[in-house]
């Protein structure tokens, strides 16, 4: 750490290096490093068998399965939805296009508790949408389907916003070349455009997945939180905490953290890969 502050240009010209870096380090240490360390310390107070007993109960296993499964489903649904929305926003002119474009971001701006509240209300038997769906046997409130649905809402902007800029920069000449070589529109789309959008679609998928893994506020409203059926891992953590099972809660939290960190690592390597390959 001695040769910190190697200059940006010749000589460390601008002032404020110590102050800004010092402040940043103190802030990150207090707010990030110490709390994370507390997490690890708490878990390390468990023996290996206690740890396994905590994270691998039947209840916990079904919670992981639901959390990862519902997140995967929501992310998978968002890939075609996001591609379609990005496509019409970039390629077509139609009334209210700009409003539609702005509305895509609403799930990021809307507090998750509000999303949960309104989704729980829309899909119950006498809700606006539930009145049509429930008679068909579709229970989109207080069910696993409800969890996937609300996670789809929460993650909607990710795929759209990763695909949109890539779609905009695709050269018209590529499509022209494909067309002049006799490709149909469908062939051009599936053989030329889709491969070019691949990295963006994968990144969007992974971002939606990672976000969904940790989601709590919206799911807690719509899921009903029934043990073994609709209890996701974050809800299980809160339940353990409320019963003062701190070590168990932390152990489950660690599993969840490992899941999201792994996803983020995949995203980062994807980004590096696509930058190197000039997509």
């Amino acid at each position, binding site marked *: 750490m001695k040769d910190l502050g190697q200059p940006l240009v010749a000589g460390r010209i601008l002032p404020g290096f110590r102050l800004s870096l010092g402040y940043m380090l103190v802030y990150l240490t207090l*707010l990030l490093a110490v709390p994370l360390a507390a997490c690890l310390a708490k878990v390390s107070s468990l023996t290996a068998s206690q740890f396994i007993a905590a994270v691998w109960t039947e209840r916990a296993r079904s919670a992981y399965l639901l959390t990862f499964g519902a997140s995967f489903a929501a992310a998978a649904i968002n890939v075609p939805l996001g591609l379609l929305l990005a496509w019409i926003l970039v390629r077509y002119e139609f009334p209210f296009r700009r409003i539609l474009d702005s509305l895509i971001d609403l799930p990021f701006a809307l507090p998750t508790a509000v999303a949960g509240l309104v989704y729980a209300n829309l899909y119950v038997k006498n809700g606006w949408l539930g009145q049509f769906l429930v008679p068909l046997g579709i229970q989109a409130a207080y069910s696993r389907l409800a969890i996937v649905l609300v996670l789809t809402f929460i993650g909607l902007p990710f795929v759209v916003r990763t695909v949109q800029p890539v779609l905009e920069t695709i050269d018209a000449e590529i499509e022209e070349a494909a067309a002049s070589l006799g490709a149909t529109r469908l062939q051009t789309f599936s053989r030329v455009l889709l491969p070019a959008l691949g990295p963006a679609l994968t990144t969007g998928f992974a971002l939606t997945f990672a976000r969904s893994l940790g989601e709590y506020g919206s799911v807690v409203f719509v899921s009903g939180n029934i043990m073994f059926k609709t209890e996701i891992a974050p809800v299980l953590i*809160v339940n353990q905490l409320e019963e003062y099972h701190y070590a168990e809660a932390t152990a489950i939290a660690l599993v969840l953290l490992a899941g999201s960190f792994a996803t983020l690592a995949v995203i980062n390597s994807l980004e590096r890969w696509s930058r190197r390959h000039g997509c």
Partner: protein
Amino acid sequence: MDADRHAVATAEPQRRFRQDPLLIRIPLILAGIVIVGVLIVIPVVNVFYQALSHGFGTYWRNLVDDADTRHAILLTLIVAPISVALNVAFGIAAAWAVTRFRFSGRTLLVTMIDLPFAISPVVAGLMFVLLFGLQGYFGPWLRDHGVRIIFALPGLILATTFVTLPFVARELIPVMEALGPEEETAALSLGANGWQIFWRVTVPNIKWALLYGVILCNARAMGEFGAVYVVSGHIAGQTDTMPLRVQKLFDEYNNPGSFAVASMLTSLALLTLLAKVWLERKTRREIAAGARIGSAVPRIDDIGETP
């Protein structure tokens, strides 16, 4: 971006090979409108409909006559600005350190800034309970000295600040990186001191990015649920913020009351979107080339970036 795209669309006539036939175009557009309609528009309309379903008078009474709801609104208005202010100071310091100097460990620090986005809000809250809760590492010491962090205001601020930590820094870093140190170095060579450089050169250059970061940070701070839920203890009239109040009223089967509070939060979200559109137009006009707000790829919890 819309303006740019529009300009491109009119300047360069739609070429035949790129244009899909109407038979494809119209169903796709309709499908897109249905998706956004069902997932986004209907829920937003439903919030206001439910909130106002018993008339405006009831709506108003739900917000104003309920002491606990009043307190929740007040608490949110205390917690959010403090968290935003803390993260503005951090964001500026971090952006300055990371973009104006090169040092070992720099990339690691930039990665660390994004970390809170990868941590479930519930886990964030849990970490502070482990530190400051009664059974936590500092719990006994805090109790002996009469300091309450968990189930009290400091805990709410800590949890909210943690969750919103990346917002301002992430907007400032790419902008300051793109601007480069030339103007500041020039000011220095003309004899300006550090604070003069900062206030007269840096701040005018980054003001819109800063405002953008503040708006996003504030929206998330006011709406945060999971992290705050864990540390608050849900004491009505004491540690319930607006999103927590929404849930409590919902649990008490007070739907109109719950939706009344939710409608305020929804209005905040809509205002945030409006401000975002306005700011993006403004910066697009001001900075025709070079720096733009935000990074290319949206991250977790980011309000979508449009280049």
